[in-house]
């Protein structure tokens, strides 16, 4: 059977290097299949993450030939022809725990810093509100919120963003996409503080619209538009004295 050359980054927070493996080149296999084969049969100490393996959880995200992807949804033939080498690295812009497993804490810390959690206007103490909130799904705000709520926090956009790489305080596309869904949630009462949290050099004003996040999102979400929306809201609110 034909073979596939695979180079995998091995190491930890102190540093590491690429290690080369060879795997059988099967007709239909995903990058995750390849990594699993290597861990099971060649390098039992290879550290990597996956869970659902069917493109629902986002745990298997890694850098494949320089681009962040879900490895369970990336067929080898789409990224490497026979004779070419596959290069697999841990997700960029995150600290490495070991080999292909990164520490997602900074990603979720920024999510929290962007105030990416729902704060109910009614019954803020957690009690059940007396009435259902009536939110027409086709209303402009709800449509804008709905465009971003499918995010599962996989980190691909964060790993793909150059501003995240150049500016360590930058909240990143996912956190701000989430903030935008909440800014558009008419039931949410926390927007004064949230808009403050996503403004400035650490927030939306450092986005340069490279739109790599939107290009790479495996769920076809559009963090670029969400961030542009935050800029717009902050600009007009400030100009018109609402803030």
């Amino acid at each position, binding site marked *: 059977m034909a073979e596939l050359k695979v180079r995998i980054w091995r190491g930890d927070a102190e540093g590491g290097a690429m290690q080369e493996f060879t795997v059988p080149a099967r007709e239909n296999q995903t990058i995750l299949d390849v990594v699993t084969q290597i861990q099971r049969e060649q390098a039992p100490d290879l550290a990597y993450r996956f869970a659902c393996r069917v493109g629902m959880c986002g745990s298997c995200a890694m850098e494949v030939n320089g681009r962040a992807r879900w490895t369970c949804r990336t067929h080898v033939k789409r990224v490497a022809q026979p004779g070419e080498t596959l290069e697999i690295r841990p997700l960029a812009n995150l600290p490495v725990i070991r080999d292909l497993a990164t520490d997602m804490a900074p990603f979720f810390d920024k999510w929290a810093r962007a105030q990416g959690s729902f704060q109910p206007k009614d019954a803020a103490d957690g009690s059940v509100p007396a009435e259902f909130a009536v939110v027409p799904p086709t209303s402009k705000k709800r449509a804008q919120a709905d465009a971003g709520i499918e995010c599962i926090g996989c980190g691909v956009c964060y790993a793909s963003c150059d501003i995240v790489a*150049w*500016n360590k305080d930058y909240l990143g596309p996912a956190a701000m996409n989430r903030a935008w869904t909440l800014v558009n949630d008419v039931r949410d009462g926390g927007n004064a503080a949230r808009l403050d949290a996503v*403004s*400035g*050099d650490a*927030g939306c*004003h*450092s986005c340069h619209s490279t739109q790599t996040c939107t290009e790479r999102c495996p769920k076809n979400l559009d963090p670029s538009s969400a961030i542009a929306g935050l800029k717009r809201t902050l*600009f007009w609110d400030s100009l018109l004295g609402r803030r």
Partner: protein
Amino acid sequence: MRQSGTQLWAIQRITAAFLGIAVIVHLVTIMIAVRGGLSATEILARTRGAELWFAFYAIFALCAGLHGAIGLRNIAGEWLGLRGRGVDALWVSTGLVTAAFGIRAAWGLYHAG
């Protein structure tokens, strides 16, 4: 409290809105001025004693100076790691000094002997 990043972004976009129009005017003016070679006589015939051209170029210079300086600030922060309130103040000053040179030049063209 408004962060400096927010304010500088707003200034850059507001100056950009003016520059959007000013640069189109400028490009058209350039295309016409270079015909037959640049000549001081031609340029000054247009700008000498012309209040509107002076006002246009003065505001143009102010906007361009600030817009450029804020852009440089972003590049320096992201690619050279140069950040902080002191650095911001330096860039804004640079922008204002550049603008001052531009306004001085506009005045020269308005007042030329």
